């Protein structure tokens, strides 16, 4: 029987083929390249939906498909194989669905860029790599996809490579990702060394045989990989800089899909984390720390995209926290990931629309009063805003509230710590998002005063941009309820992460938690509204309290990286260069110089005068005779 599930590779091959065609065709494809890019992603989306329906009709909700042998060295056998199960299915729909909307949006956003074809080629490459990542059935193939999305991310951040900021941001993202990739690679090596396999089924079946130290090590290395890709503490510094790329890239890669790959990895590797409470605790700590860092810095930034970037970091912190809690919270991590994919992509597209209208201005201190001139953007952005702060009944409420609930449920002091952090984060999220919303869309028109009437009235973006924003806004509103209603997503994911527990004894009453979360959110909204309703100065005040000053400098993340890693690395490199040039090279060069110098002097003996040669011969003969005589007559 030939079904859609037998040709899963098409999902990946279509966008990949399109990327290859667009890159090879060159300028010939300038006129139709963006249509091809959208069409292949649309085809992948249709295939994804069909595959989803086909999977739903099956009782055994897991399809494995081996395409070909990738590596066969001794006992190491790695196949390029695909696994389509409920978790992959959800991700395929998210990637192709949101990806399609953002592809369509990019047609309008990049319309005036002469390299639009190249942009679509990279976007398609990204979609293909991300699909490979989520469809893989072993960790090596995950790694291939992992590197593929890293490459696409690098290419897209540096899309405007002639801007020094973009070029160095791309380099930074690539290098910091590399730190995480080393963790993932080491985790794969450890799996193979201890279990002799890298396939999901083999590794997860053998987890019980691992010593607890090994399981913890593998878990922490996987976490390191996830931190790098997802911009989590301590590898978070690249994500805000990645906003130098075009806004659709920020929406697709650095908000909705790629940065959530870390969450995917942890949920996918849930058997390993279940075997190691220490690793789970680490995941929780990383999540809680990052969500607070993101919130705090988000409150102090003035760049609309950077605020959203820190918000992304903080929301992924929530997902990590949920994934670290384990058990029923795995499904919550994925739920938050999906709802976040909708509202954050929508917010980024809204930010892009604002920038489109404001001639690429990103400073929210120079916006204000845009709701009148850009109503569609304001409404879709507003719906995303309401969703992210967790206002019922929008998406964020259904995904964030249970995470906070489960964080409090963790036994012992850690429950209070994580729950408290998550609650504080919710309040801060409401504060900085309200600040962003109010300063951008309401209040005085600071941009008008700034240009002295020279700046033309900002116009609403074309429909090709507003339509995807509308679709994402609908998702922001409805996705949370639809996915969490009657535990729809939890039940769907049950084969992968375990069935949802029916009756959990909560430490705190659910209603208490909900009301405290709503209270914190309201407090944040009210404070921000009161502070910023009357607008703000056009440039940031020089004096501020120490927390704000620290937050403006990203809580010194770059300074710490510079001091600890860059300086140390540069110093170590100088030592190595010295040893190499003076020690190794010195020995070899010295030897060569001695030989060369000796020969240069010795060759002077070859004078070309026959008589000096014959004298030499005579001396030699005399010497030989003397030697013989001494030997004979002694």
């Amino acid at each position, binding site marked *: 029987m030939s079904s859609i599930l037998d040709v899963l590779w098409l999902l990946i091959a279509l966008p990949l083929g399109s990327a290859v065609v667009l890159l090879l065709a060159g300028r010939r494809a300038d006129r139709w390249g963006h249509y091809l890019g959208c069409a292949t992603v649309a085809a992948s989306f249709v295939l994804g939906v069909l595959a989803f329906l086909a999977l739903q009709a099956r009782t055994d909700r897991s399809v494995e498909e081996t395409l070909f042998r990738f590596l066969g060295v001794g006992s190491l056998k790695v196949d390029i194989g695909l696994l389509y199960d409920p978790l992959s299915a959800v991700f395929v729909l998210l990637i192709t669905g949101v990806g399609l909307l953002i592809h369509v949006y990019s047609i309008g956003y990049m319309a005036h860029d002469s390299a639009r074809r190249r942009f679509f080629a990279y976007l398609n490459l990204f979609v293909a790599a991300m699909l490979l990542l989520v469809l893989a059935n072993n960790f090596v193939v995950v790694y291939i996809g992992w590197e593929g999305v890293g490459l696409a991310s690098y290419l897209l951040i540096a899309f405007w490579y002639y801007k020094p900021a973009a070029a160095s941001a791309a380099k930074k993202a690539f290098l910091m990702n590399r730190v995480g990739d080393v963790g993932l690679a080491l985790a794969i090596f450890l799996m193979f060394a201890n279990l002799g396999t890298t396939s999901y089924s083999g590794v997860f079946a053998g987890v019980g045989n691992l010593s607890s130290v090994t399981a913890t090590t593998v878990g922490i290395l996987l976490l390191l990989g996830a931190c790098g890709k997802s911009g989590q503490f301590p590898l978070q510094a690249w994500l805000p800089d990645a906003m130098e790329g075009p806004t659709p890239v920020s929406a697709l890669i650095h908000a909705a899909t790629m940065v959530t790959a870390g969450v995917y990895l942890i949920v996918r590797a849930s058997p390993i984390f279940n075997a190691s409470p220490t690793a789970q605790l680490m995941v929780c700590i990383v999540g809680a720390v990052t969500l607070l860092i993101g919130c705090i810095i988000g409150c102090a930034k003035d760049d609309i995209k950077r605020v959203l970037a820190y918000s992304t970091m903080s929301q992924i912190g929530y997902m990590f926290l949920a994934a670290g809690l384990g058990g029923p919270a795995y499904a919550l991590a994925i739920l938050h990931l999906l709802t976040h994919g909708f509202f954050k992509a929508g917010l980024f597209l809204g930010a892009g629309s604002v920038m489109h209208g404001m001639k690429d201005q990103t400073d929210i201190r120079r916006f204000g009063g845009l709701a009148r001139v850009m109503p569609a953007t304001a409404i879709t952005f507003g719906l995303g805003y309401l969703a992210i702060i967790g206002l019922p009944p929008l998406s964020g409420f259904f995904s964030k509230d249970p995470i906070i609930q489960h964080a409090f449920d963790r036994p012992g002091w850690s429950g209070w710590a994580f729950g408290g952090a998550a609650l504080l984060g919710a309040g801060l999220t409401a504060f900085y998002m309200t600040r962003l919303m109010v300063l951008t869309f309401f209040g005085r028109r600071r941009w008008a005063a700034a240009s002295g009437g020279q700046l033309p009235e900002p116009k609403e973006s074309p429909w090709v941009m507003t339509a995807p924003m509308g679709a994402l806004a609908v998702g922001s509103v409805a996705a949370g309820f639809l996915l969490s209603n009657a535990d729809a997503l939890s039940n769907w994911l049950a084969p992968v992460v375990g069935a949802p527990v029916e009756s959990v004894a909560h430490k705190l009453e659910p209603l208490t938690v909900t009301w405290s979360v709503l209270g914190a959110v309201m407090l944040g909204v009210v404070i921000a509204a009161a502070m910023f309703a009357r607008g703000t100065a056009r440039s940031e005040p020089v004096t501020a309290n120490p927390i704000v000053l620290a937050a403006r400098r990203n809580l010194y993340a770059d300074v710490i990286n510079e001091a600890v890693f860059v300086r140390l690395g540069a110093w170590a490199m100088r030592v190595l260069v010295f040893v190499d040039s003076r020690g190794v090279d010195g020995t070899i060069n010295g030897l060569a110089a001695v030989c060369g110098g000796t020969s240069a002097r010795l*060759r*002077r003996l*070859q*004078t*070309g*005068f*026959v*008589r000096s040669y*014959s*004298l030499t011969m*005579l001396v030699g003969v005399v010497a030989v005779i003397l030697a013989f005589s001494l030997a004979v007559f002694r």
Partner: protein
Amino acid sequence: MSPTYYLILAAALFTIGAVGVLVRRNAIVVFMCVELMLNALNLTLVTFSRINGTLDGQVMAFFVMVVAAAEVVIGLAIIMAIFRSRSSTSVDDANILKY
């Protein structure tokens, strides 16, 4: 008459030849000095043959003569060739084969 005198004469001739090779510049003279050394050697061979009462040395002397004849042919040809190209028979002028 003691054969020792022949040996002394041979040594003297050899020394004259060797010094001549070392100090003279004219290639023809150098060549003649080489011949002188060879014939001093022949004299030594013949003398020892006489002293020992065997014919080995005399046979060897004939070989040396043959070799000397062949060497004269080659050597004079070389000298002719050098003279044609450099208009000189001085051995110091043929000194380009060096470092």
